């Protein structure tokens, strides 16, 4: 147990150092969601109150940008893992007595940290351009923690694909899978305005519940039920992705 914790600490440090040394990889994870945020608000802000019944569309969209940024950050981990596999560094780590689970845990912890950083930046920009934050500073802390948890949970998808395939092209599926999840959720409008089929799909989509919990903090204040569902959705995604990752790790590493 102690050995797992120590190895996770050192490998997390390495992963974060790596992120700091590649700003060209990290910055797009902030800039692209901010670009989408600006264009979506620009396109729909005027019609949102009448069309969707959303009084502050900026506040409605800031959680989407945060989730999008965090999914991007988490997906990079899979690509980094494939790079390690390709250049043989993963084998070098496997040759040490490092507990295998530390190789995955360190990535998840590093992604959680990276997710809190990018989501904080997006939140600050969102507030600067007019988003409310009804739950106050405490709400901001919960938002960022929720994003940290989502970062760790979602990075498991890319890690599982990378460990199983060792293929850089396949590793990019981590972010590609996210877009259908986002578009089939309440990312752009409340589900009340959806066609029935899309409403049904959105109700089964964990991203819908994640966004609902975040929006409750931004637009309404504290809502225990919505927050509970949001954390449960992250837990569900995390359980699924971690299960896949551990299976893939077992198949790759003895």
């Amino acid at each position, binding site marked *: 147990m102690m050995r797992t914790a120590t190895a996770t600490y050192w490998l997390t440090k390495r992963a974060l150092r790596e992120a700091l040394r590649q700003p060209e990889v990290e910055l797009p994870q902030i800039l692209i969601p901010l670009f989408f945020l600006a264009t979506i608000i620009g396109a729909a802000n005027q019609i949102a109150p009448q069309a969707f019944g959303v009084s502050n569309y900026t506040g409605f969209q800031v959680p989407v940008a945060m989730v999008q940024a965090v999914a991007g950050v988490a997906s990079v981990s899979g690509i980094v893992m494939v790079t*390690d596999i390709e250049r043989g*560094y993963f084998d070098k780590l496997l040759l040490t007595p490092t507990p295998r689970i530390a190789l995955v845990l360190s990535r998840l912890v590093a992604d959680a940290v990276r997710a809190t950083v990018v989501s904080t930046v997006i939140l600050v920009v969102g507030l600067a351009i007019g988003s409310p934050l009804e739950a106050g500073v405490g709400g901001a802390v919960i938002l960022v923690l929720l994003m940290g948890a989502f970062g760790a949970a979602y990075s498991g998808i890319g890690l599982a694909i990378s460990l199983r395939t060792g293929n850089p092209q396949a590793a990019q599926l981590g972010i590609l899978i996210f877009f259908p999840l986002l578009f089939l959720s309440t990312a752009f409008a409340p589900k009340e305005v959806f066609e029935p089929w899309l409403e049904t799909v959105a109700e089964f989509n964990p991203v819908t519940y994640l966004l609902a919990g975040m929006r409750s903090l931004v637009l309404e204040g504290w809502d225990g039920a919505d927050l509970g569902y949001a954390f449960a959705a992250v837990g569900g995604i995390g359980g699924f992705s971690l299960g896949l990752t551990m299976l893939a790790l077992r198949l790759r590493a003895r």
Partner: protein
Amino acid sequence: MGAMPAIEAVALVKEYERGVRALDGVSLSVEAGEIFGFLGQNGSGKSTTIRILTTLLAPTAGSGRIGGLDIRREAGAVREKIGVALQEAGLDDLQTGRELLVLQGHLYGMSGGAVERWVVELLQIVDLEDAAERPIRTYSGGMKRRLDLASALVHAPEIVFLDEPTTGLDPIAREGIWRYIERLNREDGVTFFLTTQYLEEADRLAQRIMILEAGRIVAEGSPEALKAAIATDVVTVQVGEASAVGRAADVAQGLAGVEDVRRTDTAVAIYLPEGSAAVARIVRLLDEAQVPVASITLARPTLDDVFLRATGHHLAVDEGLDGATA
């Protein structure tokens, strides 16, 4: 009862998908404190053997023990005992050389101060102290190879596996690594399991060698014993025209006292006792058979001859790291 071998493999078999049999019953035993050379061409199964013995790969059949520990059931404890530098230097380009070694030390449970001090010393030993704070991506192939070697030694292992440690290095860098291996073996009693494509390397370092061909062991012994076992001189005839190699081989086969004849694309190696007495006769017979001779040499057997005799061909060297320098 004798001392426990440092490395032991019994009837290792490895079959990959589609029935490719990379290892076909490899058994070996390496004593503690020995430098053991594992010779073979690319694809002969050397790297597969190392990957199995170092716990990276599960064998299809057979067993192995490292320092008495079973490679399957006690893989974690095996990893504590061994240091490994694989054929491709597995490094992280974004770290500096020092950071990589320090991380490696921590992963072996070394404490902060001790690992930092030892890494400084280790970087000096592999002549990388000036490049210690540079990102590894800026290193040349030779520097990466030396750093990889240092990373295999960071926790002062008892047993070290080196998979072609000097492939692609220039002669000066190669000599440096040889000296360091010899020193560790002599002063600290470190056991080395070394695969190589370089006969000179095996001859210089290995106290005992094994030749692997298509997943099977075809020769084993000390370099001296293997050479002595040939018990003949080698007369090598370089033939001026490739088309005449067959005629030259026929001539050689007809010589009295000849023990063996091996041919390559351009030459014929004739194994026979008292080679010096036979050279004149060989030249005359080749001339009579109208074989154009480019050169003729007489030598005591080398490891290359041992390899040729064991496998039927010369050891082809793949330099791997093109253009790599120290």
